[in-house]
């Protein structure tokens, strides 16, 4: 049970941290923030990695894990790049000003 109770603490504190992190967001940043947070939610790729590593020679499981990893990385890489593309447009103007 020790992992579980520890994990619950982690869950609780993580949630509280998340609630505090974003206070006032200017409307300009709503879209980039959503897309950035979305990329982070692809962190589930760690679970996919763990699954593949632990599955040994179980082929169906390897395939499921690999597909899962693909979906997660699609989310992560696409998410970060698209966010960067959006934010690059704001910063370009900043430097010129």
């Amino acid at each position, binding site marked *: 049970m020790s992992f579980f109770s520890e994990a619950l603490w982690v869950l609780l504190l993580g949630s509280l941290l998340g609630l505090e*992190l974003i206070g006032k967001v200017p409307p300009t940043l709503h879209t980039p923030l959503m897309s950035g947070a979305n990329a982070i939610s692809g962190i589930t790729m760690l679970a*996919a990695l763990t699954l593949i*590593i632990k599955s040994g020679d179980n082929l169906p499981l390897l395939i499921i894990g690999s597909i899962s990893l693909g979906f997660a990385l*699609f989310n992560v890489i696409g998410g970060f790049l698209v966010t960067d593309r959006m934010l690059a447009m704001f910063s370009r103007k900043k430097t010129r000003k």
Partner: protein
Amino acid sequence: MTFIAPVKFAIDLLAVLLLALGIKGLSKVRSAREANRLAAIAMILAAFGVLLNSQGTIGISINSWIWIICGTLIGGLLGALTAKRVPMTAMPEIVALFNGCGGMSSLLVALGVALFPSTDGSDGVVGELIRNFSIVVSLFVGAITFSGSIVAMAKLQGWLSTPSWTQSKARHFFNILCAVIALIGGIYLSIDGQNGLFLIVVASSLLGIGVTLPIGGADMPVVISLLNSYSGVAAAAAGFVVGSQLLIVAGAMVGAAGLILTQVMCAGMNRSLVSVLFGGALGASSAASGGGGGEYTNITSCSPEECALTLEAAERVVIVPGYGLAVAQAQHTLREVTRVLENADIEVTYAIHPVAGRMPGHMNVLLAEADVPYEQLKEMDVINPEFPATDVVLVLGANDVVNPQAKNDQTSPLYGMPVLDVQEARTVFVIKRGMSAGYSGIKNDLFDLQNTSMVFGDAKKVLGDLLLELKELGVGSKG
């Protein structure tokens, strides 16, 4: 081998710290770009930590490496390509798509562990009931996130319309039924770890569709933001399934932050989350209550030439850009028109409605792409008192956000939504393709007003004509 555990621990801690700083930084204009990179670095670190730890403790077989590399390459390349290729106008859809894939990933992990329980090494650590429960949550939230996001994307792309049955009360029964079935499946699975698996997946997928499908128009970004929060929850649940604290903390952070962002968005649109989720689409309720508000009686239309003449005599011009502008890819032509006006010492500002372009902040991105100076973009609260002192307002492909009904007509479904008071200006030109209703499907009273003239045509073409006329008149060519 002994040094690996503390190293992995340190990496995890660093990754969590960077992720938190990343989310924090993303909410400030100045630090946003660096923050995004920081978060990306954190993700790489986290993945590295998992690989290092596994290699050092249980070892990673060649077989596993092959499948890891396959998944990474395919998913990563597709993601990179999509991110590079997608036009800025399709941003809401693409965020929904990415988000759905994140949910799908969590779902698949839970599915894998549930189908082949023996492979889960942490069996002894996490009690079986708890493990099964985590699987249920991961499946449930993952499936809702995936199906909901895909429906949201399809609706934004225009591939799906709102079927009429989803506007009736029947949808509540449908959704409750799905939820109950998923719950029963969940209880089954929690107890014996095998049965009820696909019951949950199917029922929660249907639930995701049933909840998202009736939601229309301006509310869609709120739903995407909410689903984004869900995908964080799904990741946290997957963290319980595979026993990863890093995953739990990161998922919880995104889930909670997404919830806050959703609330901020709702506040910006003067909608409550409950009415977004259970109120149904705006347009349909108006159609039900009397044909969308009646016919137009007093439409004045004019040519780009007349519009140019009025602009020439103006001192203050306000542009109201909307989604139509973005669809016509006219933001660059618009920028040329405003350059000409500025050269003629005409003051030009842009009025940005909080949900202009169908997603908060979306229009800022699009105008930034066209090189419009940041200082010229004004938010609704700033610009609204300035309309009475404005000579000309150009409404470009915006509709619902300039509908005075939202202020004047208590029976209107739009009533209460914050709008731009363009009718206060001396003259209003509405550049629009035809008389069709806006995204909400509601008649716009603005078009009937005395001081409003319609310029019909594609935004890009009209602006191009306008540019020619202005040049012919010699506006802005004094130097």
